[in-house]
């Protein structure tokens, strides 16, 4: 333990002696303070807070990410190149501890820097929120500076429904010459249409099992979030509809509300309309469900996609703790970056390690391309005339690689703290634990094992830097 801590301490000392810590901290705080002066917001306090959160946190991730790659590559590769590692490796400390010590050092540095810069962002937000007029502050606290949980109906399982319909269809029927693929496609379309389409003057209802979430029942306001399409999925035409929340006597009805298609709406619901002291629990039906109904009062059908669902957003906790959890996920990412840099520099020289780490990051950031390739089932694209992949053998060889790569990347990328924070969504303890397990333990651990193994095998005296 003592040797390990000595390495950690050494990393800190290096960061301070080379003024890296101060420089990065100054850069971070500077950008947090300066960014709000430079960014163009949409003119609302809400929009400003969102863009402020998004941009400051993104800049923090970017700066700290670069600093982490730089530091973690340098802290080992430079030691090897400048031969200092020779002095350390001949001492009674196992090589894996040297590696771990360096990693811990970098992670602790990141923790400190993230705490400082995150604190600055938080302070700035609170300061600005405090200066707003009461009404705007209320909106801000209700929608952004809050940790909102989300509740959806259990998604309709299209596939098993299709299975069931198909089973019913072929029961006792002559299946000779039946094209099952075609049948499935048709049944799926039908099932979807049944679920998604709301013709004029008809009603779509959602039943959300909200009684399972105790603290929510005492709330007196929440938001409903949804999206629908018109007949033309690209059209932004407005469609009129009426909303009914709750059941029986205890329900809140909206006036016919023209809403644009093809975009998400977040509609506030204030239970106090029912009467003073009324709570969300008063809206539930006999089975403890929150029923929300939509009546299409327009002249054409609208479509509520199954994938989007209808979400009820409710206050789950305060912003401060949520913000801290968000920062922790960012710290997990940075820890993974540190492990990546160290693993690379366990085997490569400093510039090469930096280059490789950044290369890997670029691949990660282009995971959008990866995922679209995987979902389209082709990398080189389709021939538009034949509908066949252009390079079939290439696709066959590379698609599995892409799929695996994407799965690995998604282990780390599935979390979106900046997004959640800027939309006032709750980052639960569960997802935090999951993030820790996936990012730090699994991916970081894998990189650490690789890095330590490479470092263990490496001959440390081959560097000839002084000759």
């Amino acid at each position: 333990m003592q040797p390990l801590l000595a390495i950690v301490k050494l990393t800190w000392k290096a960061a301070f002696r080379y003024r890296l810590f101060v420089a990065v901290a100054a850069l971070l705080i500077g950008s947090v303070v300066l960014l709000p002066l430079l960014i163009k917001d949409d003119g609302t306090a809400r929009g400003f807070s969102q863009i402020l959160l998004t941009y400051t946190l993104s800049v923090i991730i970017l700066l700290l990410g670069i600093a982490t790659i730089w530091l973690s590559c340098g802290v080992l590769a430079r030691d090897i190149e400048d031969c200092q590692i020779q002095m350390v490796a001949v001492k009674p400390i196992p090589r894996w501890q040297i590696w771990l010590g360096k990693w811990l050092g970098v992670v602790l540095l990141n923790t400190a820097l993230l705490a400082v810069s995150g604190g600055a962002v938080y302070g700035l937000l609170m300061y600005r929120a405090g200066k707003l007029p009461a009404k705007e502050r209320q909106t801000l606290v209700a929608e952004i500076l809050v940790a909102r949980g989300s509740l959806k109906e259990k998604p309709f399982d299209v596939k098993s429904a299709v299975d069931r319909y198909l089973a019913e269809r072929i029961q006792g029927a002559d299946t000779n010459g039946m094209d099952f693929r075609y049948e499935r496609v048709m049944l799926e379309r039908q099932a979807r249409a049944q679920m998604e389409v709301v013709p004029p003057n008809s009603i779509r209802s959602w039943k959300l099992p909200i009684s399972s979430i105790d603290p929510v029942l005492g709330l007196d306001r929440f938001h409903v979030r949804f999206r629908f399409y018109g007949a033309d999925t690209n059209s932004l035409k407005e469609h009129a509809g009426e909303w009914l929340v709750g059941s029986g006597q205890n329900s809140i009805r909206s006036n016919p509300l023209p809403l644009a298609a093809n975009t998400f709406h977040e509609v506030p619901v204030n239970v106090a309309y029912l009467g003073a002291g009324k709570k969300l629990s008063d809206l539930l039906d006999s089975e403890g469900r929150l029923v929300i109904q939509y009546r299409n009062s327009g002249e054409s059908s609208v479509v509520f996609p199954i994938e989007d669902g209808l979400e009820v957003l409710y206050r789950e906790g305060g912003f401060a703790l949520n913000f801290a959890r968000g920062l922790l996920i960012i710290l997990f990412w940075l820890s993974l970056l540190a492990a990546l840099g160290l693993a690379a520099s366990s085997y490569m020289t400093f510039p090469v390690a930096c280059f490789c780490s950044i290369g890997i990051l670029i691949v990660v950031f282009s995971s959008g391309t990866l995922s679209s390739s995987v979902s389209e089932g082709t990398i080189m694209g389709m021939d538009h005339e034949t509908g066949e992949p252009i390079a079939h053998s290439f696709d066959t060889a590379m698609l599995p690689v892409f799929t695996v790569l994407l799965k690995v990347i998604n282990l780390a990328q599935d979390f979106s703290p900046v997004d959640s924070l800027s939309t006032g969504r709750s980052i639960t303890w569960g997802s935090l634990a999951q993030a820790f397990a996936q990012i730090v333990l699994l991916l970081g651990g894998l990189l650490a094992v690789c890095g330590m193994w490479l470092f263990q095998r490496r001959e440390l005296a081959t560097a000839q830097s002084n000759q």
Partner: protein
Amino acid sequence: MTALEQVQATNPEVSAIDDRENVVAVRGLTKVFKDFWGRPKARAVDNVDFEIKRGEVFGLLGPNGSGKSTTVKMLLGLLYPTKGHIEVFGKSPRDVQTKQRIGYLPEESYLYRYLNSEETLDFFGNLFSIDAKDRQNRAEQLIEMVGLNTARTRTVGEFSKGMQRRIGLAQALINDPDLIILDEPTSGLDPIGCREIKDLIIALAKRGKTIILSSHLLADVEDVCDRVVIYYGGKIQAIGTLKELLSERETLRITTPTLSREATEKVLATIRADIGNGEVRVDNPTQNLESYFLDVVKRAREASAETSGATSGHRVAAYLRGDDAGSAADATAKVLDRLTASKPPAVPAPSVPAASQSAVDSLKLAALGKAEPAKPAEQPKVAAKPAVDLSKANEKLSGLLGGKSDH
């Protein structure tokens, strides 16, 4: 015949059994550096065997790139042998616990430049898991010992080379090691510092510590080492105690004041009459480690042992000889003239080819010419103080070997 074989053939004591415990045992050690494609690039150490006993001060000698440092780094587990076997305290050099007993001073300052003396010692003390009180105690004493009292809080990056050697030595001793490996310990140190280090080595040896000293400063080695190996081209060319290596039992040297030519002829005639056609050589009595070392290197080269390191310059650059106008060949001829003129009439030495003779001569000349260009070469040195002689020899040798530190 290599020097090693020669020595072993004539000195049965070398292989005599020593009952002391082995601290280091190396058998068949070979290190081949490979290039990116895995093709052998250089054979730095080639089938080396030696053992080091507890309490020995063991010297590793050799020109640049002869494999000394590679051997040291394999002993420390910083490089892994291609073939062969190393044991340090009976274990693999990569064993973490073994390192508890080793102190290492590398050939250059590989210390963290942003730490000061105290922090450096504290850091390395921590790596040995020494508790805080001990650490401070030892650091205190070591800083005192290496004379860095006034520079405790200056960072190592600001140190002169000599100071860096001193703090390097201090860190090597923080764990009170049983085996101390010193790579060029005196390089960059002033004469007083050199003396202090040598005294320290002797003192440590007296306390039963085992010390491995790698150096091309022959004076260091001669002053403190019990046994030495001489490397050339990755192979051991000679091994043994200094006494064994330096005494030539097959030859006899008669040292006299300068004789007249007649007297010399007379003496030689007498000797020839006695030994027939055997080799008789007349030269100045410089048979110390330096000349022995040069002899070994020369023979190894004649036996065309490959070296992957630097080879010694066969000629001294014209401008250094103060003779840039004439051609190199002319210059050599002139020098040879002077040499032969100062010697007794040439006695043919049939077993030594003329070419190699002149090569050796020009080597010596270059060394001499650099150290004392005006002095005639025929001055015999009768009873010069060894220390003075050695330090001159060091200078000459370092000139010969390219003047660079060796690792």
